């Protein structure tokens, strides 16, 4: 609609706008470009000083090495990918169902302690997770869940963020809709699945995006709750590839691994981004 050039007069503010956006955008892209170019660098270029930003002779060696190194060790790389997908997938799916189930009565049912429960949620948003780390670890290790997928999933299911977002979002849905469904004979369970869930879609998308990024990237649970190599998730495995003394030669492999790791998160963002912005506008964050 508004082109850069209106008639014959040059629209300076439009040009200014796009120059700035592109400039900042490039700065934002730097880490990704750096990672991509590092992952393509041959060994001869990896350790140049001063370090070069772009690659001169791109090669796919690092990706091949990644498969080779991890292929010769006793756990194949695909196992880490599988673990990560299972854990993050279940955290996101379970989190959505549990949070939606809890948000529904909190927003729409009139019952005692409703306010208290909601305040508890808001307060727990402020807790830094670190205070909880120690007892959570003791709890898991005592209950014998160590080295089990459940240990990586269960502690993250009851997410205060998801609950908060969904409750705020649900409050804007008119009661009349729910009444209509009830009069037509729908049970509460049916109301939740056929009326609430579809309307909650934007909030669900936002929560899915955040919790997926969180779960996918966090090496902490695997580091603490697992001791066996074949239960590790991707972020922890990548840390192991890069970490420790004497593995300097794997910088390129590391870059390749991290590069592969971002791809799913970008995919999730692209899928959810339209819905995400909708929720932010309506979630009542402004109150």
């Amino acid at each position: 609609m508004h082109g850069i050039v209106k008639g014959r007069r040059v629209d300076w503010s439009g040009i200014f706008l796009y120059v700035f956006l592109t400039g900042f955008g490039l700065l934002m892209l730097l880490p990704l470009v750096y990672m991509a170019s590092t992952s393509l660098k041959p060994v001869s270029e990896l350790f140049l000083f001063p370090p070069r930003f772009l690659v001169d002779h791109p090669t796919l060696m690092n990706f091949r090495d990644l498969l080779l190194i991890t292929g010769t060790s006793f756990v194949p790389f695909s196992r880490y990918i599988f673990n990560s997908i299972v854990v993050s997938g279940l955290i996101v799916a379970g989190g959505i169902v549990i949070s939606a189930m809890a948000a529904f009565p909190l927003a729409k049912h009139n019952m005692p302690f409703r306010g208290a429960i909601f305040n508890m949620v808001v307060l727990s948003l402020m807790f830094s997770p670190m205070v909880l780390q120690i007892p959570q670890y003791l709890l898991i290790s005592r209950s014998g869940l160590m080295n089990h997928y459940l240990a990586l999933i269960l502690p993250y299911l009851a997410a205060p963020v998801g609950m908060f977002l969904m409750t705020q979002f649900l409050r804007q849905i008119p009661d009349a809709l729910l009444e209509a469904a009830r009069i037509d004979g729908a049970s509460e369970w049916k109301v939740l699945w056929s009326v609430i869930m579809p309307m909650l879609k934007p909030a669900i998308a936002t929560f899915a995006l955040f919790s997926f990024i969180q779960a996918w990237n966090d090496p902490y649970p695997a580091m603490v709750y697992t001791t066996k190599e074949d239960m590790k998730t991707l972020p922890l495995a990548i840390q192991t590839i890069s970490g420790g003394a004497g593995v300097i030669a794997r910088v390129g492999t590391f870059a390749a691994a991290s590069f592969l790791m971002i791809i799913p998160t970008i995919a999730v963002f692209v899928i959810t981004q339209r819905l995400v912005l909708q929720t932010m506008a309506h979630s009542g964050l402004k109150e």
Partner: protein
Amino acid sequence: MNLKMKLSIRVRHMLEGYIFILPWIVGFLLFMAIPLGRSFYYAFHRLEPSEHGLVATFVGFTYFRQAFTTDVDFLPLLQKTMTAMVTQVPLILVFAMFSALLLNKASRGKVFFRGVFFLPVIIASGAILRELLDQGAAKLPIFVQYDLFRKLAFFIPEQILEPVLEYADSLTLVMWDSGVQILIFLAGLQTISPILYEAAKCDGATKWEVFWKITFPMIMPMILVNTLFSIVNSFTKTDNHVMNHLMNIVFRNNDYGYGSAIGWLYFLFIFIVLGIIFLIFRKSMATAEGRA
């Protein structure tokens, strides 16, 4: 079925509500409330492993005293995170607001730019970000490559130049940290009704006036949300020094009691900072509402 009929509709409604919340509450109690209580208990006890599991002996405030008197790392690290927070949060807010304003104006390539600005949130995860920082990716390459420091040193005294350049160095970090804030601002900007802008235009307001009299007051709540979010984020980031210190205490030295004590001290500290922010904003929120 029989039982169901006897209950009144109201009670049934309530019961159904509780059943729906139940899974969440169970998870919350098990993995948040109980651990929180336990860690509070541990903070006052010395924990020693024995054949009966961990044995706790009451030590009172010893650990809290230890944090302030014997631990040489805790206070300096706390101060370091505090300075990082004070310098970075305002920068993040200004940058996020500026970017959001620009993004809101853009009509072409909206989705693309939005994605680009959100990208760092996706990449900036613990493991990868830390590795990139180690490799010096956060430093703007211009300062090193073109020897800017020595060239500038001719004109500006070194004592001033050094902190300024350090500040500029952390700018990239600031930008990468502001993805979520940009999204929140953007959402806030989109809720402002265009009628207000039209009215201002009819009354002959300049763009500068429109920003300060309409846009700024209208997104005041978003500024509060963003400030809180940035502060909590800067305190709980994976590369936060106090967090690392705590991890070391707990998982290298296996000192659960002392770790819990420090965790609680840190939490209290964050809580006080957030409280101050709330107090500051309450005043400006009130004036903003009065104007609307």
